[in-house]
């Protein structure tokens, strides 16, 4: 029995919520539907209509937008729970028991059907949503149809054997396009190359049998670039242990050795997040993920899944850490870009525009963070046409966990032989199949739509609370991990390492709908699930607790020491693979690089007298200006921990670092920052990396961070990583990571890579085209400060305060924002002087500890002029500064003084009573007194006698907020 309830805002609505309810009520259906309708309506704001189209304003057509079958419908789930609670319906919400399908109905008064269809397209994403257009006449006659978008899967053979006794051609095909179904359709990428396929072929020859589909799919997941990070693991040129071991891990090891008893790393690289000491009672964890490919197809779903997913990397740290802050980073194409891209030659699969992608991604992080009660604190957004084909979406989470729980060290965990394998949280559907393998390949027309998922933050919130607020303290499980890429196929196989094997009974896994095939159940990435190892004798207590919290928990198997990963499906063994082969069988490949020659040269600049116009233009450049339209729609104050906010000062400028108080009765603060310089990579990926590290550290120290208690994270987003030139650029940047992490004594504690951010498709004319992102390295920093009351914000504070520049300026405009406005790249990319910068940062730290600093802002993209402008806009005060006596090894042009992006520089302001003490502490540093903070909002920069910039704070304020305001 199907009924439709319409709920509209009171009065003449132009917008309707619709709930299709499918359930066979035992008795008096009408009365029960009426009860439900009342529960769905706030009588003060809304009214409802049952199976009858509401009274509305005039319209010609209606557009109904709902989800496609099987796509997560969160509102639907809530209504199902409401009904079950209200009417005491028994059993779980499944399509065959009770199901609610929601949709939104828009009224349009446009007479042309063609245009209405256009509007419909602008209102939904065909990949996950359906639209239905109906005329006034049709609606008047019989309203909207009572048809539910139920998933119907035709019965398929549960398991097929895949013969590898085939030509190399066929092996290649299986690897690239997937296993051939009984219906002669390929199932989608395994992302296994010929070498890997041949190894698998050999392996099964030994056992004189063909692999089953689930065995192949499972190997593909575990061996995927996404899971095994082959490019960082494989030998490359003469680096036999690979980049990760040789440069990232060994940097951390060396730093920890050097720090001796001051080493603050507790759990690095081994767990879902990296964990460092916060104080004697707590650890703080950090992890940053990317979710690029899904976000290109479904920006909202991709982004929300990214953030809610990385939350589970926190909940999955040790015995379960509590998420205390979210971070984000976006690299988008230019939203003004209207050009069309298609994934297929017939121009049927259209890529979303950069603007649609931006809006969807921003919303996804909004809903994911806000609904979960985790402050979304720290972030950046960057625009470049080269992100048109694939946006980059970074999502990270900081966690907090007591160092000891029930007397046990909280970061240690081990599944025990005989423990139950328990899955908690959401049910399994077709969503997110081949996510891991998909993100390991170039995106083209074969990219599977099922790789897209939508998260349900509330289901996860219930799970998260039950684990970290209760189960964690009751000592009910020995190990826990996240279900992310590869679903249970990866999480179970990973945990099985801890004890030596696993046996799974796949039919026990709770499903969203029937007839899923075993291989689909095994690798599905349906969200909000964690896997735990629960001792048999604790199972009943654990299950009771989860039930009380409305969380589904199911035993799906047992951890063993059989050295095998065995999967059964209703009594039949369908997977039997040695742990050894599963985890170590992946053949090593020796990667080769070939060095890149950069041809960019320095331009000859025409002599200019005034730079006022250029500065105002630069400040309104969306890569330098504010993004309050993002910051203010993210709740950054929940948990009551906010200290230095994303927006600061009278002029609400975006801060480069943020400070928060994770433990409310401790004065210790945690500082977060990040940095990336993709355009420096056009000149040198080595310096791109060193500058990102220096900037992330500098930002952190500027607001009160401690250089000796500061850790960093790496996120490499690369392109066409099978191209030796790209690999050469990768090696350069990784070498810089080693060099500068060791130099600063700031260990890497966690990292992630995404190596194939390329798009291959067609332009509007059907011409083949390809676009790859610029190699992008994001460095995130996390530091602990002893007393958060000493936090320093970036904006100028008081009239008369003295303005200083710390650090040396060099002719380094290359790859910078000023050159970009001239349409050139240049060759003088900024370089980092370790010794000098460390000295500067230590002195600044000391000055901040002595509370001598009124404001400190890190000089980054756009150089000194932009830093000055931001500090003034932030304080809504003017300044009068002179460039005359700038510390520099050689004479500099005005351009360079204003816009050079030389690293290691900090712009500080100091009030009169502190000048003497401040100058004493910074006496031996490269330091100049630039001028003063002045009243009546004048902004003046002189070079000798000439005023090179003369404007006012009002103009700068408008320029700084121009783009952001245009997005509100």
């Amino acid at each position, binding site marked *: 029995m199907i009924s439709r309830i319409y*709920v509209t*805002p009171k009065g003449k609505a132009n917008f309707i*919520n619709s709930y299709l309810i499918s359930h066979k009520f035992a008795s008096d259906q009408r009365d029960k539907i009426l009860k439900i309708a009342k*529960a*769905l309506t*706030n009588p*003060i*704001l*809304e009214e409802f209509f049952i199976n009858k189209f509401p009274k509305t304003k005039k319209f010609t057509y209606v557009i109904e937008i709902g989800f496609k079958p099987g796509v997560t419908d*969160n*509102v639907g*789930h*809530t*209504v199902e*729970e*409401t009904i079950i*609670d*209200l009417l005491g319906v028994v059993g779980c919400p499944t399509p065959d028991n009770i199901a609610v399908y929601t949709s939104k109905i828009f009224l349009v008064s446009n007479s042309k059907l063609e245009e209405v269809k256009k509007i419909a397209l602008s209102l939904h994403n065909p990949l996950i949503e359906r639209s239905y257009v109906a005329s006034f006449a049709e609606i008047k006659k019989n309203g909207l149809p009572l048809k539910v978008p139920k998933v119907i899967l035709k019965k398929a053979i549960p398991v097929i054997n895949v013969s590898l006794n085939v030509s190399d051609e066929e092996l290649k095909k299986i690897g690239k396009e997937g296993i051939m179904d009984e219906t002669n359709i390929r199932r989608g990428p395994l992302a296994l190359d010929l070498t890997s396929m041949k190894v698998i072929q050999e392996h099964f020859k030994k056992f004189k049998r063909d692999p089953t589909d689930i065995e192949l799919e499972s190997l593909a997941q575990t061996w995927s670039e996404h899971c095994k990070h082959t490019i960082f693991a494989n030998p490359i040129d003469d680096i036999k242990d690979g980049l990760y071991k040789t440069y990232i891990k060994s940097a951390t090891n060396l730093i920890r050795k050097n720090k001796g008893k001051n080493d603050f790393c507790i759990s690095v690289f081994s767990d879902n997040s990296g964990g460092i000491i916060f104080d004697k009672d707590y650890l703080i964890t950090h992890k940053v993920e990317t979710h690029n490919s899904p976000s290109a197809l479904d920006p909202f779903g991709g982004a929300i899944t990214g953030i809610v997913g990385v939350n589970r990397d926190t909940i999955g740290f040790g015995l379960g850490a509590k998420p205390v802050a979210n971070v984000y980073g976006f690299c988008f194409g230019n939203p003004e870009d209207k050009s069309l891209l298609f994934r297929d030659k017939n121009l049927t699969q259209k890529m979303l525009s950069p603007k649609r992608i931006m809006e969807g991604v921003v919303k996804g992080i*909004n*809903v994911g963070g*806000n*609904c*979960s*009660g985790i402050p979304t604190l720290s972030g950046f957004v960057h625009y470049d046409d080269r992100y048109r084909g694939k946006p980059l979406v970074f999502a990270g989470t900081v966690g907090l966990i007591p160092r000891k729980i029930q007397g046990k060290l909280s970061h240690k965990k081990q599944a025990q032989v005989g423990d139950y394998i328990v899955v908690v949280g959401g049910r399994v559907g077709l969503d997110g199949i081949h996510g891991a393998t998909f993100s390991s390949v170039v995106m083209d027309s074969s990219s599977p739509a099922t790789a897209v998922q939508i998260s*349900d*933050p*509330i289901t996860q*919130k*219930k799970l998260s*609370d039950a684990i970290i607020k209760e189960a964690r303290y009751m000592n009910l499980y020995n190990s826990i991990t996240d279900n992310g890429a590869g679903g249970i196929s990866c999480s179970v196989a990973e945990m099985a390492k801890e004890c030596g094997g696993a046996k799974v009974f796949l039919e026990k896994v709770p499903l969203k709908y029937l007839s899923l095939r075993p291989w689909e159940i095994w690798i599905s990435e349906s969200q909000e699930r964690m896997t735990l190892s629960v001792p048999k004798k604790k199972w009943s207590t654990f299950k009771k607790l989860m039930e*009380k*919290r*409305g969380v589904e928990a199911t035993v799906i198997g047992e951890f063993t020491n059989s050295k095998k990963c065995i999967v059964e499906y209703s009594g039949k063994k369908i997977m039997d693979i040695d742990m050894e082969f599963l985890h170590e069988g992946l053949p090593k490949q020796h990667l080769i690089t070939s060095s890149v020659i950069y041809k960019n040269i320095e331009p000859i600049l025409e002599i200019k007298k005034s730079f006022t116009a250029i500065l105002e233009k630069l400040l309104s450049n969306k890569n330098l200006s504010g993004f309050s339209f993002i910051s*203010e*729609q*993210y*709740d*950054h*104050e*929940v*948990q*009551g*921990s*906010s*200290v*230095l*906010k994303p927006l*600061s*000062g*009278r002029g*609400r400028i975006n801060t480069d670092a943020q400070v928060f108080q994770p433990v*409310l*009765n401790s004065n210790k603060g945690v500082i977060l920052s990040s940095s990336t310089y993709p355009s420096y990579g056009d000149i040198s990926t080595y310096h791109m990396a060193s500058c990102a590290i220096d900037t992330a550290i500098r930002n952190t120290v500027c607001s009160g961070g401690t250089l000796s208690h500061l850790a960093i994270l790496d996120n490499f987003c690369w392109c066409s990583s099978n191209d030796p030139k790209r690999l050469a650029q990768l090696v350069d940047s990784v070498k810089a990571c080693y060099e500068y992490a060791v130099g600063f004594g700031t260990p890497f504690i966690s990292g992630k890579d995404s190596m194939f951010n390329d798009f291959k498709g067609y332009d509007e004319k059907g011409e083949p085209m390809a676009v790859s992102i610029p190699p992008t390295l994001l460095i995130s920093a996390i530091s602990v400060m002893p007393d*958060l*009351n000493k*936090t320093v*914000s970036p*904006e100028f*504070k008081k009239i008369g305060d003295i303005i200083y520049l710390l650090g040396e300026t060099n002719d380094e405009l290359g790859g910078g924002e000023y050159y970009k406005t001239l349409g050139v790249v240049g060759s003088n990319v900024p370089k980092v002087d370790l010794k000098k910068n460390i000295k500067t940062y230590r002195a600044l730290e000391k000055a901040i500890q002595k509370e001598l600093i009124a404001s400190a802002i890190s000089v980054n993209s756009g150089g000194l002029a932009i830093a000055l402008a931001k500090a003034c806009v932030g304080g809504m005060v003017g300044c009068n500064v002179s460039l005359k006596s700038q510390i520099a090894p050689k004479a500099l042009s005005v351009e360079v003084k204003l816009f050079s992006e030389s690293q290691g520089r900090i712009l500080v302001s100091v009030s009169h009573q502190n000048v003497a003490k401040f100058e004493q502490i910074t006496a031996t540093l490269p330091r100049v007194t630039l001028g003063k903070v002045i009243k009546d909002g004048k902004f003046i920069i002189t070079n000798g006698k000439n005023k090179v910039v003369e404007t006012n704070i009002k103009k700068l304020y408008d320029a700084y907020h121009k783009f952001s305001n245009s997005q*509100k």
Partner: protein
Amino acid sequence: MKKPKIIIISGYGLNCEEETKFAFELAGGIANIVHINDLIKKPKMLKEYQILVFPGGFSYGDDTGSGKAYANKFKNHLAKELTEFLSRNTLTIGICNGFQIITNLGILPGGLTYNKNGKYIDRWVDLEAKGNSPWLKGIKKISLPIAHGEGHYVISKKEYKKMRKNKEIAFVYTNGEICKFQNLEKNPNGSEYDIAGVLAYNGRVLGMMPHPERAMFSHQSPIWQMDKNVQKEGVGLQIFKNAINYFLNS
């Protein structure tokens, strides 16, 4: 009189319970966080408490309208106990999502819908205390943060007049130091009559969109950076102290 006991309801996406507990304890109370399912199991529990708190959060993800689904669940199982609790000389507060929940429960007038620009917003606001309530003792003007997508308060003219007469308008948005400092409009969400919080049951029940528990410390204020030499305590704490003192001094 001994310290009052505070019950803070949690579960299904409510998420401000921990900092709210911290605020009540800082103010001198004894606060317990109780999952709604545990309360449904032992409804009599409510008798042991003097202060009932619906904290902020995102119960059921605001699906079908903020606070609606959670209020339904509460009504279905705890209607009787709630009436009993309110009939005693007790205090109740709903903050943000908690406010949305208790308007849906019908113990406060009016309703809350989407912000006028349709966007979720996190900022600070200035408030003027108008109502007559133990919660508001000694508070005239106060600046607190908001963070919501559905804070637009809706009320009929007739009811508004009645409430104003009975001093049941707790807070209205006003132009104060925050709006001046960051040049912001006073009413962030289009609330009718600039209403930010309302009262019922002779001022014993307070619902408000702003978050006093996010203003426990002075360093949480955007203005703090201008002058850090102020007392550590934040202005928001007064609301929690008032609730505690209501019982200590009676």
